[in-house]
C-alpha cells in the first residue's frame, strides 16, 4: 500500500471530513483532498489525480451510491478502490452498495482501528489480485 497515494474524502459534514482526514494522516496518509458531495467529487476524480476514494452515502446533490455507480461506469475510473463510510445501516443498503461495487463499508460511528482495518484489507486484496 502506497502511503503517498492521493485520497479524496467526500462527506457533506465538514466535521466528518476533518475527522477522516486526521485519522488518515495518523495512519500515514498525508495526501488527502476533500469534496462535499458527489457532484463536486466527480470532476475532481475525473481529473485523474486520485488513487482512492472515501465517501459518505447520504449527501445533497449527488449521493455516495450514485457517485460509486458513476465511477464504476467510467472507463478511466472503474477500477478505483472505494471505501464507503456512512450512517446508512440498513441491510438492503449495504447489499446495494456491495452490488454497486464498493470495496469496503464502514458504518458510523466508527473507530480508528476499523478504518485502518478496512483500508488495509482493500489494498491487500488489490495487491493480491495484481500479483
Amino acid at each position: 500500500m502506497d502511503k503517498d497515494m492521493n485520497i479524496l474524502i467526500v462527506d457533506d459534514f465538514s466535521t466528518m471530513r476533518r475527522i477522516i482526514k486526521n485519522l488518515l494522516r495518523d495512519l500515514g496518509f498525508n495526501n488527502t483532498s476533500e469534496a462535499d458531495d458527489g457532484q463536486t467529487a466527480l470532476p475532481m476524480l475525473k481529473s485523474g489525480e486520485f488513487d482512492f476514494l472515501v465517501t459518505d452515502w447520504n449527501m445533497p446533490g449527488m449521493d455516495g451510491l450514485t457517485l460509486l455507480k458513476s465511477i464504476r461506469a467510467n472507463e478511466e475510473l472503474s477500477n478505483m478502490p472505494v471505501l464507503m463510510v456512512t450512517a446508512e445501516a440498513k441491510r438492503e443498503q449495504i447489499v446495494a452498495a456491495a452490488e454497486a461495487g464498493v470495496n469496503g463499508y464502514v458504518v458510523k460511528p466508527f473507530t480508528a482501528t476499523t478504518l485502518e482495518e478496512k483500508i488495509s484489507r482493500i489494498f491487500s486484496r488489490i495487491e493480491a489480485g495484481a500479483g
Partner: protein
Amino acid sequence: MPEEKSLMDKQFLDKAEELVEALRAEDEQRVDRLLSEITDLRESALYQELGMLTREIHDSISAFATDDRVAELVQDEIPDAKQRLNFIISKTDEAAHRTISGAEDTILLIDAFSDRVGPLYRRWQQFCNRELSKQEFIDLSDDLNRFFEACGEETNAIHEKMNEIMLIQGYQDITGQMIKQVINMVQEIESKLIGLVSISGSRKPLMTTVVEDSGEIAVGPQLPDACREVVVQSQDDVDDLLASLGF
C-alpha cells in the same frame, strides 16, 4: 354568496320601508310584526353564515383526518421524531462527557509530564554548573534515560487521547443527519396544517411548502433499537453481511 347577500339586503330594505309606512300609519300591530320579521331575517342570515363555516370546517377536518399521510405522520413519524430528538440529546450528552473526560485525561498526562521535567531540568542545570558529584551525575543519567523512555510512551498516550477526542466529534454528523430528518417531517406537517388553515380559516389559499418525496435510497442514521433484521447494529454485522456476499 354575494347574490345571497344582495337578496338578503333587498328583503331588509323592503321590510324597513314597510315598517316606516306602518309607523306613519300608526299601525302598532303591523309594526310589531315587521320588527319581529326583521329580527328573524337577521338571525337567519347569521345562521346561514355559521352553517357555511361549520360545513367548511367539517369538510376540511374530514379531509385532514382521512389523509393517509397525516395518519402516518401522527402514528409513526411524530413519535419517531421524539425518539430521534431524545437520541440526539443522549448522543450529544455522551459526546460532551467523553470529550471532557478525554481532555481531563490529557491534562493529567501533561501535568505528570511537566512535574517530571521541572526537577530534571534543575538537576541538569546543576550539572552544567558543575555542581553535581560523580554519583549524582550517574543518578541523573539514569533518571534522564528513564525519562526519555517514558517520553515516547506518554506522548503516544496523549496522541491516542487526542485522536479519541477527534473521533468523538463524529456525533455532529450523526445528530446533524437526524435533525435534518426531523426538520423534513416538521416541514411536511407544516404544509398539511397550512392546507387546513387555508380552507377553514382565511378561506384564501396560502402558499404551501411542497415536500418532495424524492424516494432516494439514503435514509440517514437509524435509531439504535431499530429492527435488527432490517438494520445492522455494528460494524461486525456489516462485515458478516458482506462476508455472506462473498466479500
